[in-house]
């Protein structure tokens, strides 16, 4: 039966598509294959998510070697949720990429872009679906190496330096992670995540286990760009090709957040991480600094893409703030925001890619009076910007709402006030776009040809519509996140 092999196929199809694309070399075929593989992955993750919500967690023994000896692929409420986000963004960015990549990259590099897109998708899906700590490292490196290539494909020469810096920091992060996994293996003799969780209580709180926790925390925090380990992010997002930025911003850091959640709450468990160690306090402190400082830095950026990149650092701060609360509502908020911020940032970067294509740059000077020539794009940016702020009626509001609930549940009303107050800084940076696009006279140098190509605009608007849709219909996001939070806190089977 193919259906029972869906967990493996979901990763294998994009992974196999990548070398095929390199062999074919033709840009059109490459694009078609990348779209087909991404759509397949999306369909597979929807099917898996349905199956998980119907019949509980799925365990797939790779090569028929039963876990914990063989590698296990495991889909539960949390990983199914992240799989849907990653594959949905992949399936939207792939069709969008055709026009954007054609405009931004030299012709002989087009097929390489699609090959790396498929590799990156396979890596991110693999990180999410695998139930083996070392296998996770391999997929993390597959995803990361393809991200370095995606960034280095940017037109600007500064993209090369951004890619190099990300390579250095990303490799240090991944190596820290693998040191942590090595120490856990020495302490328990297993690499299977479920088996690790079962065996760790025997080895509880020895120095090796605590060192493993520290190494994994720092390594994964580098990958998810937690303040002050976020330095690679702004340049990487700003200089990568538009389609790559949209894909990475919506998925890469989110999957790393998933890895952190998986290790904190499944492997080490809340009693050690939350009750015995000051991890929540540290996370909360760093999150607050990230939210305030990155939001303020974002306000002063001269370039829309960099502004959104700094805003990403701040928004990741909201996610880790929810993790730091470590309550049911806090974790729900973290998982919901992981999804909502993914689609919001994805929508924004897709629209910005359209602007970059037509206006040549996304410098604020070039955006003056843009709403006259690109009304639909500007409306989309404004709507997604409202979701970034967290205005009621958008997806961002739902995450902020649960964050405030979580703060009150944890008895920290000042955190709730902080969430609301810092949203005002987001108003300031979104307003900068509105002011430039709607309220400024077009500058002398702005000759914008009109709306972005239909294919790009349509995909972008699907994402914008999702930002609004998930602001009203929360049955998928909030219920999915709630189930994931209950799973993490051990309340659900």
């Amino acid at each position, binding site marked *: 039966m193919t259906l029972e092999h869906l967990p493996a196929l979901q990763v294998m199809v994009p992974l196999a598509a990548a070398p095929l694309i390199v062999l074919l070399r033709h840009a059109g075929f490459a694009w078609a294959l990348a779209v087909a593989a991404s759509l397949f992955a999306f369909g597979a993750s929807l099917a898996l998510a349905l199956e998980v919500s119907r019949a509980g967690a799925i365990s797939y023994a790779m090569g028929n070697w039963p876990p914990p000896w063989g590698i296990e692929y495991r889909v539960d409420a949390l990983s199914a949720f992240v799989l849907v986000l990653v594959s949905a963004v992949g399936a939207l960015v792939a069709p969008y990429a055709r026009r954007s990549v054609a405009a931004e990259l030299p012709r002989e590099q087009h097929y390489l872009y699609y090959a790396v897109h498929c590799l990156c998708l396979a890596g991110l899906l693999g990180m999410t679906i695998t139930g083996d700590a*070392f296998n996770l*490292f*391999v997929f993390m*490196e597959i995803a990361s*190496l393809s991200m*370095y*290539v995606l960034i*280095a494909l940017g037109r600007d*020469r*500064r993209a*090369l*330096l951004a*890619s*190099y810096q990300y*390579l*250095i920091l990303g*490799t*240090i992060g991944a*190596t820290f992670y*693998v*040191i942590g996994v*090595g120490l856990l*293996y*020495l302490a328990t003799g297993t*690499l299977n995540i479920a088996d690790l969780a079962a065996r760790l209580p025997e080895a509880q709180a020895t120095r090796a286990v605590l060192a493993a926790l520290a190494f994994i925390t720092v390594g994964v925090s580098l990958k998810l760009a937690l303040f002050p380990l976020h330095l690679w992010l702004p340049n990487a997002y700003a200089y990568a090709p538009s389609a790559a930025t949209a894909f990475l911003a919506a998925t890469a850091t989110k999957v790393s957040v998933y890895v952190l959640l998986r290790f904190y709450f499944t492997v080490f468990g809340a009693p050690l991480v939350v009750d015995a160690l000051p991890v929540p306090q540290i996370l909360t402190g760093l999150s607050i600094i990230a939210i305030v400082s990155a939001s303020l830095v974002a306000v002063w950026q001269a370039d829309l893409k960099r502004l959104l990149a700094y805003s990403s650092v701040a928004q990741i701060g909201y996610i880790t703030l929810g993790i730091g609360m470590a309550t049911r509502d806090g974790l729900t908020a973290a998982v919901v925001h992981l999804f909502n911020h993914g689609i919001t940032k994805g929508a924004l970067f897709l629209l910005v890619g359209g602007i970059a294509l037509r206006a040549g740059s996304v410098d604020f000077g070039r955006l003056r009076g843009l709403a006259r020539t690109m009304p639909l794009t500007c409306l989309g940016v404004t709507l997604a910007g409202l979701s970034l702020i967290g205005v009621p009626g958008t997806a961002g509001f739902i995450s902020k709402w649960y964050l405030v609930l979580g703060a009150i549940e944890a008895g920290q009303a000042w955190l709730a006030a902080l969430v609301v107050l810092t949203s005002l800084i987001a108003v300031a940076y979104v307003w900068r776009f509105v002011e430039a696009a709607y309220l400024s006279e077009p500058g002398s140098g702005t000759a914008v040809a009109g709306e972005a190509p239909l294919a790009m605009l349509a995909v972008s608007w699907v994402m914008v519509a999702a930002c609004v849709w998930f602001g009203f219909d929360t049955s998928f996001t909030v219920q999915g996140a709630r189930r994931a939070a209950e799973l993490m806190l051990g309340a659900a089977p």
Partner: protein
Amino acid sequence: MPAFASHYTYWITVLLMAAGLYIVVARGNLVKKLIGLSIFQTSVYLLYIAPGKLIGGTAPILSEAFKVYSNPLPHVLILTAIVVGIATLALGLAIVVRIREAYGSIEEDEIVAADRDAGDRE
């Protein structure tokens, strides 16, 4: 044997780890940074492999003749990690080649200065 001497592989691991990381942070030359990164990754290979070896142990062969086995799993894991390390180093060097083509230098401070000058002219 005193404890620190019987655990000498750990001392080497820690030394390589710290030295590699220090090179990455302290050197401005992009190729030297990559060398440091490689040393740092290599220390992890040792961290996995050394504890898997039992003195006098053989490979896990099912036979009456062998009673003491070494754990083969770390070797397999590290084979994978070595491949990952090589891929990272190769990609890193490829990017450095392109940086040199674009900037004419592989010294970090000169590249940053070149970008700053270009930014001032705009």
